[in-house]
């Protein structure tokens, strides 16, 4: 069997997804028996952009892209990668849904710049200058790229074959996904590579595991309020998003007494926040709903922490 040709590209992300790959350690080394890394840029393997351009169309079997799309260069590289690749995977929350950096879409570009370069307390900027895309210093022109006013998920720029959630995906899930790719056991194009289970399914706090049903939520608690006991966090009023989140992490957060915030992506693959509101509202009393709105004023940011760019409410125009 010839080796599977794999490419990896870090777009506008934090490199955490790539650290998850590195954390495969021995498994990664084993996988290299079946996988040939043809391009891993700009982080690990020192290959140049032109090496990618010179490849034949569709000569890469699988490409993983982590990070969202923020700059024109990123869009450009991704388009070329799409052309050269048979199977393109949006790897991790940023690529699949826009991720945390996508929260920027709640604000206009000007607001973001003004905060960082003028209003922050330690900033010394008497003349109110902002970074310029072209600037002349002693007769030489220094240039900076313009960044897009909006952060996008990968499929908003090119066709994507598969999605993997998680911020980042847990390395155990990465191992499962890599194996599926090697064996060619992939779901239909356009799907998420996932166990299809929710976080609750793998959560030891799940009342269903004891054959009980979850009690309705009468009170809403922020994570700082009290110390949770061993029961379901949601049932105790902590807004755990486990019921609507894909649980390929194995329930990492509830295991350390912290509610899930949805980094795995929505269970049914549609608008995460809308699903979360639906699920929470159906469990909550009216008083609890009011309490939630009062305790968490920016419910949008809270619920769309990993998925704003692909949401229905999308962005501030």
């Amino acid at each position, binding site marked *: 069997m010839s080796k599977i040709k794999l490419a990896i590209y870090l777009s506008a992300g934090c490199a955490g997804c790539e*650290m998850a790959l590195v954390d495969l350690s021995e498994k990664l080394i084993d996988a290299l028996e079946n996988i040939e890394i043809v391009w891993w840029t700009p982080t*690990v393997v020192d290959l140049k952009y032109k090496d990618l351009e010179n490849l034949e169309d569709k000569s890469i079997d699988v490409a993983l892209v982590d990070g969202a799309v923020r700059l024109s260069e990123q869009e450009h590289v991704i388009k070329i990668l799409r052309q050269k690749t048979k199977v393109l995977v949006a790897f991790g929350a940023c690529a699949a849904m826009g991720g945390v950096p996508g929260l*920027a879409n709640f604000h206009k570009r000007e607001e973001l710049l003004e905060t960082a370069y003028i209003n922050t307390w330690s900033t010394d900027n008497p003349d109110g200058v902002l970074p310029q895309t072209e600037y002349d210093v002693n007769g030489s022109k220094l240039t900076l*790229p313009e960044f897009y006013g909006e952060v996008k998920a990968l499929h908003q720029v090119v066709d994507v074959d598969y999605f993997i959630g998680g911020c980042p995906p847990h390395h155990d899930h990465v191992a499962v996904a890599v194996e599926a790719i090697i064996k060619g056991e992939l779901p239909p194009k356009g799907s998420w590579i996932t166990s299809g289970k929710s976080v609750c399914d793998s959560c030891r706090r799940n009342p269903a595991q004891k054959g009980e049903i979850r009690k309705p939520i009468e009170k809403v608690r922020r994570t700082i309020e009290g110390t949770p006991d061993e029961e379901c966090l949601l049932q105790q009023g902590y807004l755990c998003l486990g019921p609507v989140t894909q649980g390929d992490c194995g329930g990492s957060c509830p295991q350390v007494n912290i509610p899930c915030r949805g980094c795995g992506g929505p269970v049914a693959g549609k608008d995460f926040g809308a699903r979360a509101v639906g699920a929470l509202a159906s469990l909550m009393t009216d008083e609890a709903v009011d309490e939630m709105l009062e305790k968490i004023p920016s419910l949008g940011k809270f619920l769309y922490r990993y998925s704003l760019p692909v949401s229905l409410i999308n962005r501030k125009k």
Partner: protein
Amino acid sequence: MTRLEGHGKITIIMDENGNFADAYFQTVEFRGYEKFLAGLPIEEVPRTVSTICGVCRGVHHTAATKASDGVYGVEPTETAKKIRELFLNAHYVEDHAVILYALGLPDFVVGPEADPAERNLIGLVRRVGVDIAKEILKKRKCAVKIFELLGGKPIHPVAGLPGGWSKKIEENERQEIEKLAKELVELGQITLQIFEDVILKNEKYMELVTGDLYRTVLNYMGTVDDSERINYYDGVQKIVDTRGNEIGRFRGKEYLEYIAERVIPWSYMKFPYLKQLGWNDIRDGEGTSIYSVGPLPRLNVSEGMNTPLAQEHYEKMFEVLGEKPAHYILSFHWARAIELLNAAERVLELAQDESITNSDVRAELGEVTGEGVGILEAPRGTLIHHYKTDDRGIVEEANLIVATTHNNAAINLAIRNAAKKFVKNGEIDEKILNYVEMAFRPYDLCLACATHTLPGRMPIEIEVYDSEGMLYRRLRNF
């Protein structure tokens, strides 16, 4: 292909004889965390800001957690403090190891003029041998295990809470951590041994380390404890001038009296400087208001390490360098190796403290004060997270100064000094690219914090312009 945007860019300008005239290092991406965190409850911030960087995620998590203590007017419990410090030190070992083996050491082990295709982690593995390399990887993974056990997630941790930590350590977990910690101490010793064998015993390299080529004379800042020893998690920020005289000391919110950040139109990264000395441009030498942070500056401001093995190496380093503060920037790598051992020893000490399994991991929260500052030493240097909230603890404004930003001017100067030495008579080649790169690699340029990248090879583009402003050569490693 379009020009590289998401990373760093160096521009060198030559005079009419083809000699160095000027050089600039620009950062070219921007993300806007300071704005979009507004509206989140402060306790949601630590797990959110870790995504500023997937490499040094643990330090953002911990600094924001410390800031959240302030917002709720609470001191974390003794046990929680120990857990946080243990977590941070394990993170140090893992992060410093990645940086040294992937970024710092290949220049020396493989050679500064070697083919760039060889001068990386893979070339390094070939030189030191697969067995040693595997051993190193396995030992580093021990730190990752501790990180996941305490933080909840293997990359972006979630366990830090105002006044404490979400999870207590069970006795069997403590024993497990203790075992892993012993491996980490060995990793520290192996690393310093490699450093000694490869660099200290090589005259040519020692000339690079202690020569004028990579020397910038600056002020330094770092955190020290009550006995003036380095502390990564907590202490007081100490600043010394170019001769080592103390010029300031601050805690928490007082940072605003000492540090200001200049905005320069040609970079997305601001330029911090020491406020009392006033902005006097990007220049080094006596009287400069530029300072740097990170492993070497920490050793420079302190009077020693808080663990015995690391202390021996600390003494040896300053003896060999022959000055304190040491201004030789390649010795950042040396300081980093010493810190790796120090952090490993600290993990072991904390893991052997049986009281770390106490169950008082969360303090009772006080009234919301509406403001919190979290300062700690990230592997790359001082990290400042500062938040203002409303009376319910909902974030209204934020200010973040990350290590790479503190070092922005220092990096510019290091590159300028190196380019000055290498750019002569219009002769520019690929070797120069690496010698210039070697000037910023000590700072472990994690633009992930301001932009993003992983310690592999920092993608960088160097453009050289002639005196007429025409592009003369473009060198790039991507």
